């Protein structure tokens, strides 16, 4: 694909993250560091998963059976692993919060505000989203520069890169905002929020299995966007409620 198209695809997947980065995250250096560490953490999770599944890929599929089962196991295991990692991320964040609060006390500055904590969660989520977009979408764009583009037979209406950018955008949204929901859930001990995040992740992952069927992406992608929208709305509602609560207090 041409360079212009390549840039277009990249912006499609990462445009909202870029604007979020410039508007919110680049103002505070600590958030930039959080994004970088979060991206690194999720990259390591992808490497571990790749290491585990190396021996089994590519799946041998006979024409009669499709590769539903192995792929669903792959996605299931990956989502479970990543959600476990999220809990670990939360624990690390808790320790960091304590250190920062102690530091703030020592230099007699105010402790972390609620909005600060949410911004850190947002930055962490963005790291996750960016890791996904970069490794699943962006890194496949650069080798493909040049004339002609690539179509997948199962989804032949659009070039492959366009489809993958759209999916990446949905996932970036889901990851970014589920981290906020998750951190909030862990902080408040709210079971619903804590469970919603893994469920949404799992459902989104499983939805992409629909793409294995011919023409499946026509159904799969809009449903994925529904999940992303749901995550966005839920996060917005939760944050609004939390902020209103803390203001009334």
């Amino acid at each position, binding site marked *: 694909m041409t360079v212009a198209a390549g840039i277009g695809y990249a912006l499609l997947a990462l445009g909202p993250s870029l604007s979020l980065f410039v508007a919110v995250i680049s*103002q*505070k*250096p600590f958030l*930039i*560091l959080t994004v*970088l560490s979060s*991206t*690194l953490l999720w*990259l390591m999770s*992808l*490497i571990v*998963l*790749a*290491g585990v599944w*190396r021996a089994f*890929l*590519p799946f041998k599929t006979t024409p009669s059976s499709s*590769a539903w089962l192995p*792929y669903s196991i*792959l*996605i299931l295991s*990956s989502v479970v692993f990543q959600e476990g990692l999220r809990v670990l991320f939360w624990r690390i964040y808790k320790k960091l919060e304590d*250190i*920062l609060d*102690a*530091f*703030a006390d020592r*230099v007699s*500055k*105010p402790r*972390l*505000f609620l909005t*600060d904590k949410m*911004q*850190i969660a947002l930055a962490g989520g963005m790291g996750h989203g960016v890791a996904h977009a*970069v*490794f*699943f*979408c*962006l*890194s*496949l764009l*650069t*080798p493909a520069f040049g004339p002609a583009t690539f179509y*997948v037979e*199962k989804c032949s209406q659009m070039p492959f890169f366009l489809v*993958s950018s759209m*999916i*990446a955008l949905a*996932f970036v949204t889901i990851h970014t905002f589920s981290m906020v929901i998750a951190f909030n859930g862990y902080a408040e001990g709210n079971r619903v929020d804590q469970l919603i995040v893994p469920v949404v*992740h799992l459902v*989104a*992952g499983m939805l*992409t*299995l629909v*793409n*294995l069927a011919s023409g499946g*992406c026509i159904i*799969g992608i809009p449903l994925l966007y529904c999940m992303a929208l749901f995550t966005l709305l839920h996060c917005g509602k939760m944050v609004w409620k939390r902020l209103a609560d803390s*203001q009334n207090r």
Partner: protein
Amino acid sequence: MDQNQKPTSLLDTIGEEIIRILTPVSICMFLVVILVSILNNSSDSSGPSITTIASIAYSEDSSDSIWDKLKGALLNSLVFVAVVTVVTFLLVLLFYLRCTKFLKYYMGFSAFLVLGFIGGEIAVFVIKDLSFPIDAVTFMVVLFNFTVVGVLATFMENFAIFIKQGYLVVVGMLVAYWFTLLPEWTTWVLLVAMALYDLAAVLLPGGPLRLLVELAISRDEDIPALVYEARPVTDHDSVPSNGEVQRRVWRERRHIESDFIDNVEASSESNPVGSNTSNASRVSGMSLSLETNERERNLVAAEEGRVATLDSELSAPLIQHRIDVQLNLQEGPSDNSALEGIGLGSSGAIKLGLGDFIFYSVLVGRAAMYDFMTVYACYLAIIAGLGITLMLLAFYQKALPALPVSVLLGVLFYLLTRLLLENFVVQCSINLLMF
């Protein structure tokens, strides 16, 4: 409390110095990746190959077996590290004999060589590739001016800091691109060898860099080298009212009153002086072999301003208070309002040697020659390594080598990505399966 007037939060200022050193490192890596992509697109083989000290023992041929390539690469790296060691010891000797002026002039000269000759050569490559219409006379004039300003920037102390930092990044980028022209196996083994050499040279008692640092501290001088120094962050809240800040040498907590002024001059923006670029007989026929500024390259020399001697575990080795040139330094370390806390003090400048820039960028440039996925992975690994080194600096509070952790992590991630991740991701993405 009215949310509109909330006081500045802790989050606004913390971590600023780290970002100030991460940004130029990232920019340098980014520029090298761009150069590599532009210049290596046309010629799919290793592009222009060079004869340098690093490939003197063995020049790689793609038809050799893996074992041969490995042996040849090891031989090359051994030769290179040996030359580097010898030259570093020479530098320590010169510094010991107080030939600082010589070292300073030498640095300016090597900056001239890098900007003029390597910069010129790479510019010619780029012009050839992009078919950029420019005539020879204009090119020479522009190149000459560019070089002269660069030499002045690294030479003079009170130069505009932004331009100075820009030129340092450019020098790093040019040398790093030059190194990526080495054959593949040699580059990787060389990186690992330099990381190990760095570890030895800074930490072992007889290591040249350690000697250099100790000499510099005992004389309370700055090491003459090309060092990138991030701008110090001034925190208006916690600096005492007269705006004075003090600098301390982190090893000894002496009061600095006396030898301050010259330190201030020397350190106000730059530690210019000597660096030697590592070149060796180039195709153009110049036969110099200088070394990349060994000393500074490996030192992340951060200086601490520790006020209270309590809680050493959270002490602030990265805090450094910079002096204003006009200030008089009668006050001893009396003001306890200066910073303490985690190593992310609000007023401190981190210094990173130019050689570190170069080797990080070489790693990323080499990764770019394979694929961009490795570039992203290696970039994250290097940044993580740099962060870990800075944290270790906070714990140990002595000069630490900046290369080993980052380079070893970078090489590890490159291998893991190339062997494991790429296959996995491509398989999933082709089937439009993502999670």
